[in-house]
């Protein structure tokens, strides 16, 4: 008999597969986003990366994976193969072109299946940030999207960029009674909202709650957002 060489190698929870949480970020990179909006968006995503990593670290039971899609005249995956959040880094996007949101939803829908998301899954988190009015057949795309089981179960969040954003379209995407789009009318808000929308649903998995379901808990948190004072309004 000797003392253990390594402490408790037998508690090998590393060998146990964790339930996955896919975070999918859909970004509007159409022409109307050019200038300081796209710059703020890049900044917001860049600063969300470490925050999401931190939140994921606080939830060791789940494995967080990230995908990013940008859309303008076409829908293009910036990260198509889900990347573990620990390895995620941000590459800036540029703006230009139309607003093919319908195409974007089709692209995401096509990737919401058991091939890309095998095994035990948490409801995915799908965050859409957009300023514009879709220029393609958005409603048909949305219909196909919402028919997908993963999309149906997903926590869908939307950020409206600019005071003139199409809230109705974003609300249709969210498709939940009490959860509303976040309205970012300036750069600081956008940064705050992108961070919140990407991290809050992950955090919710281990946060004390007084709400009956996760979506309503998020809606409750939203009510506490206070507008940031700033002179620059989009």
């Amino acid at each position, binding site marked *: *008999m000797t003392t253990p060489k390594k402490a408790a190698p*037998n508690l090998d929870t590393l060998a*146990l597969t964790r339930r996955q949480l896919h975070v999918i970020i859909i970004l509007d990179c159409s022409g109307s986003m050019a200038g300081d909006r796209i710059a703020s968006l890049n900044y917001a995503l860049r600063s969300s990366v470490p925050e999401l990593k931190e939140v994921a670290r606080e939830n060791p039971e789940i494995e967080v994976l990230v995908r990013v899609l940008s859309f303008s005249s076409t829908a293009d995956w910036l990260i198509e193969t889900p990347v573990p959040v620990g390895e995620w880094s941000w590459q800036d996007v540029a703006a230009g072109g139309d607003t093919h949101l319908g195409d974007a939803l089709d692209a995401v829908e096509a990737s919401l299946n058991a091939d890309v998301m095998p095994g035990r899954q948490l409801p995915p988190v799908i965050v859409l940030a957009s300023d514009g009015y879709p220029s393609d057949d958005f409603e048909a795309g949305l219909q196909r999207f919402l028919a997908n089981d993963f999309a149906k179960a997903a926590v869908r969040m939307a950020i409206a960029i600019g005071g003139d954003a199409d809230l109705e379209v974003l609300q249709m995407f969210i498709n939940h009674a009490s959860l509303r789009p976040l309205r970012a009318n300036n750069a600081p808000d956008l940064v705050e909202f992108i961070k919140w929308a990407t991290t809050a649903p992950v955090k919710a998995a281990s946060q004390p709650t007084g709400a009956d379901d996760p979506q309503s808990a998020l809606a409750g948190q939203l009510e*506490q957002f206070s507008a940031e004072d700033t002179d620059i309004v989009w």
Partner: protein
Amino acid sequence: MAGPNQKKLPDGTRFSNLGGVRHGVIDGFIGQGGQGAVYAASLEGGHFALKWYHDSYIDLDTGLKQRLTHAVHRGAPNQSFLWPLELVEIAGQKSFGYVMPVRSGDYHGMRDLIARPPDRVELTLPQRFIICCKLSEAFLQLHAAGLCYQDINFGNIFFNPTTLDILICDNDNVNVEGADASIYGTRKFMAPEVVRRETLPNTKTDLFSMSVLFFYVVMGWHPLDGKREADFSILNSEAEMSLYGTEPLFLFDPENTANGPVDGLHDPLVTRWRNLPSDLKSLFTRAFTTGLTDPNKRVLERQWRSAFTRAAHAMAACGHCGGEYAVAAGAASCGYCGAALEPALYLDCPRGLFALTPGHGLPQHLLGGGSPNFKTLVGVVEGHPSKPGVIGLRNLSDDNWKVELPGRAPGLLPPGKTIGLMAGSTFHFGKTQVSVREAQAKEVAAV
């Protein structure tokens, strides 16, 4: 909840207690949570942590001030709580806060026990059992004072990997039993009747959350996550309601295996479970079978405390792989690596078994009365300096021990001396007589 653009209090902000008698100053920002932010603060020469609530939160939680006032008035249940010491206010501010002791940097959150490397803290099973023992003691004191915690979970409990001391934070949800709760709790830690929204948190739901926490600390896994959990490809709200609310079923339920371990998926858990001391397994089984459905049949703090105290001394480790097993189980081979195991020696003490493994300290509490104290040792097991495999027991007490070795005349072991150990020997610690036994070799029973 986190997110609101709440302004931080600048360093140097002055505050006072509610009577305005004692004055202090904020020294720096520590962190921000859902309900408020925590700052380092000085108050009359002492260093404290100051929790300052978001304005929006004090409107929501109307019972907060009363709960805190009561908590401050009655004082901490024991030294494991970072308890509110005094309510404080800041001139011109709508909100309020409280000061509490500071948690030092050598404490880790409980999640670090199941974290991915390199964040992971590795502890042996006996170390984990000692942590659980201290948690039982702390919650016993809390509940005995007529209070309930309401939200026992990973997030607000910390441990020191060296001393194995624990700290329980976020005591602002602590409530008088029977008063309206401010929250339901945390996902996967809530009692089934709270998940079903049939009741608000109370002492009995605390007992359930505590047993989930113990299972996590020991197994690194949730007790209700088995086959049925694995079969849900998407864990949505309905699935969670079924798994943790309406149809909860223990992973190791001896009668119903519908949510049992899945081959290839839960194997490490099965091995660990098989190698736990059987009385601890019985407690877990009770907690997550009858205790699931009947809050009055839940395992009580004292029962956990004594089971964990016993378990902390009753483990041995495979010399080949380090895999830990219950010393009295008498396994012929290691459940982890398959290597043959030497028959293990142990002392059959009045308060539990004591594994005779080198380095293991014999605590007073195994021999006689007194509450568990893992620091007061009367003896320690030592390996022979030159003969591998030969072990002895050193007398660390101030008294002579009478020792009877098989086939020899009784002798005395004076303080500071060591004697070789063999099955059949008997030690007399004062009036307490204890024998050295050898585990009977057998195959480890199935789950």
